[in-house]
Every structure is written in C-alpha cells, then in structure tokens.
C-alpha cells in the first residue's frame, strides 16, 4: 500500500498550483509501486489555463522522485484538450 503521507507531501506544491487555476488534484494507487494522478475541474476552473499534459507529467514524475512510487499516468478532466 502506498505511503499516503509521502505521496501527499510530494504532490503538495503541485496540488496548490493546480488549485490556483481551479483544479483539484487527487491520486490513486496503480499497482504496488505506481500512482495515477487525477485532475478534476471545479466550478471555477479556467479551462484555457490547464497545464499542458507533457508539462504536468514532467512535474509529477519529478515530484514523486523522493518517494517509493513512480507516476503511472495523469488523468485529465473530461474534454480537456491538452
């Protein structure tokens, strides 16, 4: 089972950044050593402001580096174009 605290801590800065644009970041385990990061839009989300997927992946893969887990993939909000 993933060390919830370490993953939460690792993603905390990015969660805060996403919230500034109106997005909610959560994550879930994907196997024993990987996590899926999920991005959901809140009512106030700025659709055009969403961080491009390659950039998001780069940030989160790096953020998870100090933990025992790797990024499996990122799930964007339905209808996200990038």
């Amino acid at each position: 089972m993933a060390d919830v605290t370490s993953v939460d801590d690792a993603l905390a800065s990015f969660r805060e950044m996403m919230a500034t644009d109106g997005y909610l970041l959560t994550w879930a385990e994907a196997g024993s050593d990987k996590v899926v990061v999920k991005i959901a839009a809140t009512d106030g989300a700025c659709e055009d402001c969403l961080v491009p997927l390659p950039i998001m992946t780069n940030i989160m893969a790096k953020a998870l580096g100090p933990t025992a887990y790797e990024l499996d993939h990122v799930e964007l909000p339905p209808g996200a174009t990038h």
Partner: protein
Amino acid sequence: MTILEALLDPTGATGGENDSTLSPRPVTLAGLTVGLLDNTKPNSTLLLDEIAADLRRDYGIGEIKHYVKDYFGTPIKDELFQQIVSEVDIVITAVGDCGSCSAATVADGILFERAGIPTVSITSDSFAMSGQAMADVQGFPGFQFVMVEHPVASLDAEHIRGRADQAVPEALRILGVTEVA
C-alpha cells in the same frame, strides 16, 4: 469539404532543439530595440509598459516595439516569432500567471534565446513549477525567468507598479546588464 487545421504542440517542441546555451548578453541596454511580447493575460500590457519605462529612464533603451500573441496558452506562432527576431535586440514577455501561460511564456523565451535574442520571460511565483517544467521539457533546464509575486491579473495599476519593481532587477540580472545609461 474537410478543413484541416494544424494542431499546436503545447510544449512548442518541434524536434532537434537541444541548445541550452544563452544568447550573447548585451551588458548595456543603451539604444537597444526592445520587444514587448504581450500574451493577452490581464495586466500584461501594463506590466510590460511599466518595466519598459524603467528601462528607458534608467538604462537608455531605444525603440520599444509592442507585439501581441493570439493565444496565451501555447507558444508563439512562427510568423510572429520570425517578425520579432528580425526587428528587436531583446525581448521581454509576460505574463505567465496560470498553468498553461506560464509554461508557454517560458517556451517563448527559450525559442528567442535559441534564435540569439536575449529574453526575459515573466511568470508569477505560484506557477514557477510550470515554467521550470517547460524548461526541462525543452532541454533547457537552466533557463532563468523572472518570477513576480502572484497574482498579477487582478491587480490595480499601483500594485502592477510594485510587480514591475520586483521584475526589473531580476530582468537586468538575467540580461547580464551591468551598465546604467
């Protein structure tokens, strides 16, 4: 009839751009033509104008040319990019105060640096991570950009003046400017 429209890569990468060397720095700004690239985010124009006014008053910059991107969330289109490269000596571009626009602002800066134009990209500090990640993806992890305090878009003119005060010293450092006019 099928209409085909080019899809823009949000990272701006087109392959083969691995140069992470800064363009030659100007040392002095006296007489140089400065391009202000506005990404259409609120207060970008005002912030750029305030910075340019400081640089004219204290560092003697020459002509100031204004340019506007058609969309803040992706890197600059090639036609405008080529125009700017042919018309200015340095570029200042703003403002990255969201996830996509901070990444695009940094991508634009890297494009200009690789074309030999010293460039200052300005983001807000809340989106430093996005800008840095773009620099990493572009193969230019050491690209430096100015981070002013977030927010920018919602500020009045007086507070934008304060953001300009934050930006100018960092812009000068990034440009390698050491001489006051």
